[in-house]
């Protein structure tokens, strides 16, 4: 029903307002976007983010609160705001950071996979089996961050329609997921902090948060919130190492990796065993992954004493770290190309004479003479052969190569996030307010293909919806680039998880039945 006329000039779109009802809220001409309602027909007039131009963008009103779309008049959005007769309000250009809060409403209305999220978070307790826990979903804490940094904690919903309505109505900039509590979080005040009748977390996914800013001391291409394809491999490494350990070592199967929207990745381990881990057990897993012994002179210190490395570290090194260091990061980050960079590495060598010898070879030279190979590769070879040559005797040198590689590549997780059951974490499929990118899942088996710079943005998706509408195609998520992300979520993660949850519910139900039968027959 939505009719969008393609613009004649695709690079410029004009935005202006067509017919306007009298209950309209005035739009400011200034910077802020404003949601504009017509209360009668519950329409939302969208402002194009593309600023002024010569094309036309026709946008139909959209129904905000679920339910059928009303017949509403098409709006021609075109021309210079001041030129169109009858136009009262101007439409300022969209902010250039890629996020238009108005679009969130469309996003939550059409694209956000409410039903899949509900199915996930119910873990099979959808009421269809007598063994289902009807209170389960309602005991989950949600937290909404609204515009103006208004923060709503301890939100809970009893059903999918309940959750969907609230999200669509409040349009949160960010949705965080908390634990499942012993009772409905919105009723928590009725319960004590300790004693018998408590309000306390009882289940929570095992989560990990990896943020690339924790690697700022070993990446030279970007700093702070930026991320690019030269440093993103650090995230790839983190995913590979941790995913492997979670599956092979800890025996977990239902693991969801999600792009955080800007500069990192999140991991959700959803096995029943994982959800029931205590804080102490979560801590122990986080410590199992910890390798850095703290900070020395601003360098994250890795120190391997002992006659051997733990098999987990050995596997991580031989399967992921060494290769990524030598074949990817060494080059992308030019780790040994200039003096301040290679000094950092030389500092990690406990034997000063080794460092001095290397320094002697590298100082003052820009290119290695006569070699076609990259200077970083050449220097790294020199370093390795010197350390492994046996010329220098020193206990500390035995593992220096490994220590260097670990320092530059080994995953750096935020320990606090994983340790506590009540730690909140952003939900998948949220839109990051600073980048406009959707927090899409990442396939750990193909994580080296993942490109954060091509993740769908809110603006892109709006565009796609408009295009679909103009071609008279159904303009739901399947028609957009978000579609394949949702399908991946559904097929690779959700379905196996639900199958396993259902089995568990059935089994424990049958066991309980059996037990009660046994106790009746003496």
């Amino acid at each position, binding site marked *: 029903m939505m009719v969008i006329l393609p613009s004649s000039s695709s690079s410029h779109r004009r935005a202006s307002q067509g017919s306007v009802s009298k209950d309209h809220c005035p739009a400011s001409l200034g910077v802020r976007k404003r949601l504009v309602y017509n209360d009668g027909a519950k329409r939302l007039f969208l402002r194009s983010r593309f600023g002024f131009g010569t094309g036309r963008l026709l946008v139909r009103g959209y129904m905000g609160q679920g339910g059928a779309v009303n017949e509403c008049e098409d709006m021609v959005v075109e021309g210079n705001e001041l030129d169109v007769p009858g136009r009262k309000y101007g439409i300022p250009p969209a902010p250039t950071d890629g996020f238009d809060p108005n679009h969130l409403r469309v996003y939550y209305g059409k694209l956000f996979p409410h039903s899949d999220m509900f199915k996930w978070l119910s873990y099979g307790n959808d009421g269809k089996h007598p063994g289902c826990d009807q209170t389960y979903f309602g005991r989950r804490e949600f937290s909404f961050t609204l515009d103006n940094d208004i923060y709503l904690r301890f939100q809970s919903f009893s059903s999918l329609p309940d959750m969907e309505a609230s999200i669509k109505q409040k349009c949160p900039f960010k949705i965080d997921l908390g634990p499942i509590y012993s009772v409905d979080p919105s009723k928590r005040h009725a319960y004590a902090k300790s004693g018998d009748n408590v309000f306390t977390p009882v289940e929570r996914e095992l989560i990990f948060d990896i943020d690339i800013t924790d690697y700022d001391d070993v990446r030279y291409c970007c700093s702070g919130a930026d991320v690019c394809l030269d440093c993103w491999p650090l995230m790839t490494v983190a995913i590979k190492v941790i995913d492997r350990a979670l599956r*092979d*070592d*800890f*025996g*977990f199967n239902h693991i969801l990796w999600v792009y955080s929207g800007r500069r990192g990745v999140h991991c959700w381990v959803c096995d029943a*065993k994982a959800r029931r*881990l205590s804080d*102490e*057990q979560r*801590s*122990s*897993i986080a*410590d*199992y992954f910890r390798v850095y012994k703290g900070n020395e002179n601003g360098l994250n210190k890795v120190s391997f004493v*002992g*006659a*051997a*490395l*733990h*098999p*987990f*570290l*050995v596997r991580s090194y031989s399967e992921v770290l060494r290769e990524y260091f030598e074949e990817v990061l060494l080059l992308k980050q030019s780790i040994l190309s200039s003096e301040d960079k290679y000094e950092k590495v030389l500092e990690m060598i406990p034997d000063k004479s080794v460092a001095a010898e290397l320094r002697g070879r590298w100082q003052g030279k820009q290119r290695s003479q006569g070699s076609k190979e990259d200077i970083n590769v050449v220097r790294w070879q020199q370093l390795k052969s010197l350390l492994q040559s046996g010329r220098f005797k020193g206990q500390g040198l035995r593992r220096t190569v490994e220590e260097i590689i670990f320092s530059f590549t080994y995953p750096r997780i935020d320990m606090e996030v994983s340790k506590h059951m009540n730690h909140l974490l952003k939900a998948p499929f949220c839109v990051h307010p600073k980048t406009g990118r959707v927090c899409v899942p990442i396939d750990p088996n193909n994580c080296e293909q993942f490109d954060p710079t091509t993740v769908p943005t809110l603006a892109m998706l709006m565009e796609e919806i408009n295009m679909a509408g103009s071609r008279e195609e159904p303009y739901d998520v399947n028609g957009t680039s978000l579609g394949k992300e949702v399908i991946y979520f559904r097929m690779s993660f959700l379905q196996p998880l639900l199958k396993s949850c259902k089995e568990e519910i059935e089994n424990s139900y049958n066991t309980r039945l059996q037990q009660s039968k046994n106790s009746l027959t003496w």
Partner: protein
Amino acid sequence: MQSVRGLRAGVVAANPSLPLYRSPPPLEVRLEDFELFALDRLRVLKAISDALSRGKKPEEVEKLVSDLWKLHMRLPQASESLNKDVISHFVLRLVYCRTEDLRKWFLSLETTLFRYRFKLENADSQKALLTEFNLPYKAVPNAEFEIVKEKLEQVARSIGSPLSSAETIFYKVPFEEVPELVAGRKVYISRGNAYVAMNQVVSLVVTQFRSYLSKALILTNRKWTSSVRDQEKDRLTPIVEALSTSYVGPDYSQARESTEVSLKDIDHAANSSFPLCMRHLYAKLKEDHHLKHAGRMQLGLFLKGVGLKLDDALAFWRAEFSQKVGAERFEKEYAYNIRHNYGKEGKRIDYTPHSCQRIISATPGVGDHHGCPFRHFSEENLRAALGQMGVSNRAMEDVIDKAKNRHYQVACTLTFEAIHSSSCDRGINHPNQYFIDSQKILQSKLSITPPCNTSN
């Protein structure tokens, strides 16, 4: 497990030397034993607590546990020892269940005690205990062992305890059961199972012990507050309430022959063997020729414990006080009290010299010099006083640090050790103990020529 339990009489465990305290013993206990057994166990627990707060190494604590257990808890018959062990534990549960702090302390100490005692058991006994705990852990079968052997060896080498060829017994345990081992990467983990070496099994077992005892203490507390405390208010309750604050050392009320001190020796003894609290009182007495009542009590009783006879004591105090108040006033106002202290007047109670606990809890006011100097002295004064005693600079820092952290007795112990250049394992709990130990060391030094260290 239930049917097996039925076969056993009461709670005597399969392993006779290390009980698990799962349920109170169905034994009759004499009232005196109720208290005495508990006191003996308390001595052991407090000694461990002391050793830990002084930062003793694990090997030292292990030896301490072994020695102290033999000393305080052994009885001629093994069954008697076991009974004492179990009874004393349950009595102390009553004592220490009553507040969160008490529970924490007791839980921590009993778990530590259990850990060391477990380690001291032999391998078979440990295996039996493992079964006792009903831990659903399987020994790794040989075939599987061969497959993972290399990884197990790698882990062992990485934590600095390489496997000997004899060590082929490993247990397979869900990783959630051994968080400490997982956190330290001290075990090989695969498909959710941790492969735990026999010597690491201690960690397993201790975690179980701790968790069980923690829950039991809460239940005990409930029962105590809801019924037992009132039911027993004329019999057990006063004992229980006193036990948690009691001093558990000797009372030094009867000075032993060998440590008799005569008037002329006091001065020398004060300089060499008095603890700081008594030195201070003595010095102030010499300076002011007077002490207030509490100071007189503390010092006077101490001197009695040291071996000063009543006549000598009277002479001593008279010599000092008459310089200020005159001989007549001394006889009228002070002599009576001194005789009272020796049990020669009034109620004729032979008062016992104050223990450190009592002295520390005193609150000296203006003009008072009693109490524990490690608690009440300013840092400057403390340094000066310690310096005068001959404590080296290095030791001084330790002492000051302990005093700042409110470990006053530990500070005094360190002072003792610094001055006598020998260690004092038991810790200082009583000024008279300080004196006796000091004299012992000095006398043994005198009897050996050339003088050498008698530290152990």
